[in-house]
């Protein structure tokens, strides 16, 4: 599953962040997951727990807090903002899977529910990112 690849990115970035901040030991990570990425939170947490110690022993037993950020797409043609709920019903399984792999592929499958334009921005809720790295100096 490609969650491993994303989890590895989180672990490496957390380690780099801790080094830069002068932290000797990481105790807690706060991570946001964009709704568009369609990651199962529990599955991603489990993958993170498996991957982190493989990157560095220091990442064993780190508390992980995950939050999902709702997706907001903003139409550039008519100004309407719409969420993932407005898109998901019209997506087939292959399309949903493609968006799960690469969220920007939403542009191939989803049109503005108000005007039908494909020209909209992903305002919020794509990808995975680190909000906070806490640890001991």
């Amino acid at each position, binding site marked *: 599953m490609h969650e491993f690849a994303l989890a*590895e990115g*989180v672990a*490496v970035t957390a380690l780099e962040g801790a080094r830069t901040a002068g932290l000797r030991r990481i105790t807690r990570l706060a991570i946001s997951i964009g709704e568009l990425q369609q990651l199962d939170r529990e599955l991603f947490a489990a993958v993170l727990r498996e991957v982190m110690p493989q990157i560095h022993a220091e990442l064993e037993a780190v508390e992980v807090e995950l939050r999902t950020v709702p997706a907001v797409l903003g139409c550039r043609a008519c100004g309407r903002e719409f969420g993932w709920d407005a898109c998901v019903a019209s997506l087939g399984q292959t399309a949903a899977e493609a968006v799960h792999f690469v969220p920007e*592929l939403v*542009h191939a499958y989803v049109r503005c529910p108000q005007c039908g334009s494909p*020209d909209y*921005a992903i305002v919020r809720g794509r990808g995975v990112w680190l909000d906070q790295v806490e640890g001991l100096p």
Partner: protein
Amino acid sequence: MSPDPRPAVISRRLQGVRRLLAVTGGKGGIGKSVVSSLLALCLARAGARAGLLDLDFTGPCDHLVLGFGAGLPAEESGLVPPLEHGIRCLSIAHFVGATATPLRGEEASSMLVELLAVVRWGELDYLIVDLPPGLGDIPLEAVRLLPRGQFLVVATPSAVAVGTVQRTLELLGQVRAPVIGVLENMRRRAGTMVARMAARAGVPFWGSLPFDARLEEALGRPERLAQTKAYAALEAIVRAHLLG
């Protein structure tokens, strides 16, 4: 710390790639995709482990040149590019087929970062990266995100193309991207326009691929592509400059 965890793992994803060649030229229609695809085919047929990454997100065509269809890549701790005609290939066409995918700059850049972060290329001798036309987001991101990349610049013998390609060479020089050669494509008659441009830029001129009317009929069929004059000329260039 960058809150985006993806860039941190790109070098890990590419650590098994011995040599990374980015094919560019700046101008549309000069044959970057045909050159990229034939280059990968040539290397694979010579026994090298070759990969091909089509970064033209809005107008992908490597899959049309080599003849591979849609179908999501396999998942195995990331995405594994399918093996097509002996080449590890990845194109946006694998995900969306022929569906139009309109993308503005920032989202195209993000898509590039995502692909580089999650695709596992494994062990390759060469990864050929087919860049889209222009000097915009994707070529600049390729320079930034692929620090081991070497650039092969394609040009056609036309004043219109050479003007743009020359600007591409200038830009690559400004961002200190290593250019390993200039390749003339679709040559119809004797001339030195492209070779002189390469000399002015201080870049090796690798040679010419003739205009080959039979190429169009061979598209999508690697066996027939390998019988074209363009392929034969490229094969000699590859032997001299990459495999020699």
